[in-house]
């Protein structure tokens, strides 16, 4: 039981100075048992339980170091070929692309992964693989808003939305990816017009998707853009939560979809173990739509087409995603930030 919980066995690698305090506190894991070390920016959902399942099946211990994406990327760069990380797990396609583009991830050939994960949810060079899908779309309260009026992101530029929108600030990576998708779809000039249109409607900027939904419910605004699983969480806690989600741009390019995914680091010391873990996470157990799986534990959509999503989000209805390749998110992210700055988006 103990062995299975990654938290309890922090790695013993204080080679430099024997600070007795830390040694007694932090070490104690068996050094020669098979392991895989992960740098993870995903810190919600029952990840420990999943890793425990993987360890029970394979005997490979999973050690995780959490952190924010840029901090972990910075660390991977600084550690270079000596990094202890075998895999990099991120909750944004842009971050995975950045890591791959900096040469921090390696290509992996695996028939299992090719079978479990559709081609558009893998890096063309197989340097990273999506493990769950999250959809960023438009939330509203029925009655106050006619859903046909807000069927697209572009429609939110209409004057009638003045003072009625809640949006997430530009510092948030989800907002950055959404605007990156606008750039990919329309080109930079048109994308800037759209963002300027949102800004002209004087939205309330709230740096929390959950709070955006709660503010919509409380009547502070009539519509907002959030990731679908935040609404899923609120509905799980309170089935009567009054906010609904509609899938944007279904008559056009499709709704904005992002992924959380994983790649094997270029210098992975436990390469085979890392691949085994990724294969396991993409299989039926790891992909489970209920609490035991990676997508299910956070109410996200599985990438494996053989697995059904959690009933709460399945009730949101089927959706078609913007076909934008995963690699484009990272490519346009910096441009998206600059664009929002020019447009006066907070």
């Amino acid at each position, binding site marked *: 039981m103990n062995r299975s919980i990654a938290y309890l066995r922090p790695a013993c690698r204080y080679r*430099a100075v024997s600070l007795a305090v830390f040694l007694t506190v932090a070490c104690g894991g068996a050094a020669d048992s098979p392991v895989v070390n992960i740098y993870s920016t995903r810190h919600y959902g029952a990840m420990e339980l999943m890793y425990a399942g993987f360890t029970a099946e394979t005997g490979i211990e999973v050690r995780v170091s959490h952190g924010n994406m840029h901090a972990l990327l910075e660390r991977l760069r600084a550690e270079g070929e000596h990094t202890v990380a075998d895999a990099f797990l991120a909750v944004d396609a842009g971050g995975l692309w950045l890591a791959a583009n900096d040469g921090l991830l390696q290509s992996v050939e695996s028939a299992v992964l090719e079978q479990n994960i559709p081609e558009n949810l893998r890096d063309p060079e197989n340097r990273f693989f999506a493990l769950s899908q999250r959809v960023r779309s438009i939330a509203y309260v029925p009655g106050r808003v006619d859903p046909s009026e807000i069927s697209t992101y572009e429609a939110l530029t209409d004057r009638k939305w003045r003072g009625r929108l809640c949006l997430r600030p530009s510092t948030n990576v989800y907002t950055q990816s959404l605007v990156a998708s606008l750039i990919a779809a329309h080109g930079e000039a048109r994308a800037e017009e759209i963002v300027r249109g949102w800004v002209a409607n004087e939205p309330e900027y709230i740096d929390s998707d959950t709070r955006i939904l709660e503010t919509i419910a409380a009547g502070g605004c009539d519509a907002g853009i959030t990731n679908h699983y935040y609404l899923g969480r609120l509905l799980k806690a309170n089935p009567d939560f009054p906010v609904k989600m509609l899938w944007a741009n279904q008559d056009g390019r499709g709704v904005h979809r992002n992924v959380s995914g994983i790649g094997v680091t270029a210098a992975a010391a436990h390469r085979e173990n890392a691949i085994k873990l990724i294969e396991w996470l993409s299989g039926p157990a790891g992909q489970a739509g209920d609490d035991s799986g990676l997508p299910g534990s956070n109410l996200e959509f599985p990438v494996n087409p053989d697995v059904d999503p959690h009933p709460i989000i399945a009730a949101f209805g089927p959706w078609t995603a913007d076909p934008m390749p995963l690699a484009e998110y990272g490519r346009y992210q910096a441009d998206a930030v600059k664009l929002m700055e020019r447009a006066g988006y907070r």
Partner: protein
Amino acid sequence: MELSSSLSTVRARRATAARRLLWSTLPVMVAAMVVVPMVLLVARLLHPTGEVWAQLWGTILPEMIRNTLLLMLGVAVITLALGSGLAWLVTAYRFPGSRIFDWALILPLAVPTYVMGFVYMATFDFAGPVQTTLRAWFGADIALPNIRSGGGAILVMGLTLYPYVYFLARAAFREQSSSTFDAARAMGYTRLQTFFRLVLPLARPSLVAGVTLALLEAMTDFATVRFFNFRTMSEGIVHVWQGMMNRDAAIELSALFLFFALTIVIVERLLRGRARYYQPGRRTRQITRVTLVGWRKWAATATCTAIFGAAFLLPAARLVSWTVGDLSNVATANVLKTVYLGYVVRTFALAATAAVIAVLIALILAQGTRMNTGRFGRAATRLATMGYALPGAVIAAGVLITVAIIDRTVMSASESLFGINPGLLLTGSIVGLLYAYVVRFMAVAYNSVESSMVKVTPNMEEAARTLGATPGRVMWRVHLPLIKVGMAAGAALVFVDVMKELPATILLAPFGMETLSMWTYMLAAESLWESAALPSLTIVIVGLIPVMLLMRVGRMATPGGNQ
């Protein structure tokens, strides 16, 4: 006989020379260690990235600079008013609860600003319970101020940072002897006049030191201002680095930031000036407390209650109720049972180690500056305390570069000498993290140690030296007993600061070295406030221990303070 005596004189002279050399080089070396990461960062300025600058100047930089100035002004006014006002109230007057408020008013120091930020946000924003209730009473059209604003950020920072001023002001007021005060009263000043014309000016060095600490903390914060949509330069650095993926531009922005910080520190020096107020003779007794009567006593109690309530009781109560809610979930409670203690012990050990190291280094620096008045040494010391004026993420980046260079040097040396590759020794190790903490919080330790060293009057030291004591002995027998309060205070402050520290911890923590602040941040960033409450509450409670310790030590060291 004569020969041996002259021999011993020579030996003594040599020893003195060696000691002098040690004390002139040691502080410089120590200072250099602290300065190197910052210098390496600034060295990157040699390759400026003009394009990003142009964009920043044209868009958000003017607003960031304006907001930073507004924030500093607001925080300075609030912390100075609250800190010195409350300290005077509890030092000079007796009113219902004054004994309790005396120590209670420092407790907000244990609440991290970002925790206070999310508690206030969750309580007072549109969807929060306060506004929801008010709408239910007065109708949905009632116009309420938006907490998500610069005003909200300034208020929250003022409430969490005033204890810096309060603590130092309180100590300063207590050290003032009543004879000066009584003389002023005898000359016809009212108590209030005496406060403004005598007590405050005498306490100026402490007040300035406290406000400076508060300002630097407010300046380097990026998490709280983000909750409030209030973009400051510190937030901008993180934004440029992480959003625009341009580390070099972020570092250039940090240099501009450093300029602001330098201004604050120079202003502090100027305000402190040459002013060294030594209270002559023995400190006989403290300023006599006056018992307030009538409406005044209730006004005093109400004021203290309101501020203590807003700055401590409210966040603490909210955190407790969230924690209780979170723990009522059985699954969560089980996970917590297995991981909780580890977090507490790791965080505690990390903070304690950093505190001890920081205070020892501060002691060396302060002693060095005292012993030689050389410009170079003093400049090095000044530089060594600049870390407090830099955002943690920037310092962490400097430390990363520094330890990478050390590692590479060691690796290549070891390979060519022994043919063994030891791998990365420091990168990703606990040393890097402790290094960053020491660089970041050196000012906190140094200011406490140095300001208490001021109490060692030059004639005490001269007397000891005249009597033949070596500098080391002077330090051990004269300084240490006098400055141990300052050292304890410095260690306690560093301890609390390390426990609250976020950006550098995230960037540098080794595998498995997860701390309470990281835990809090990860959950709060996801708006999982209920789950973030337990680690936050723990930070607050563990932070209370050194704060209480601080108060005890302070009370024992102040004559008449423990009556």
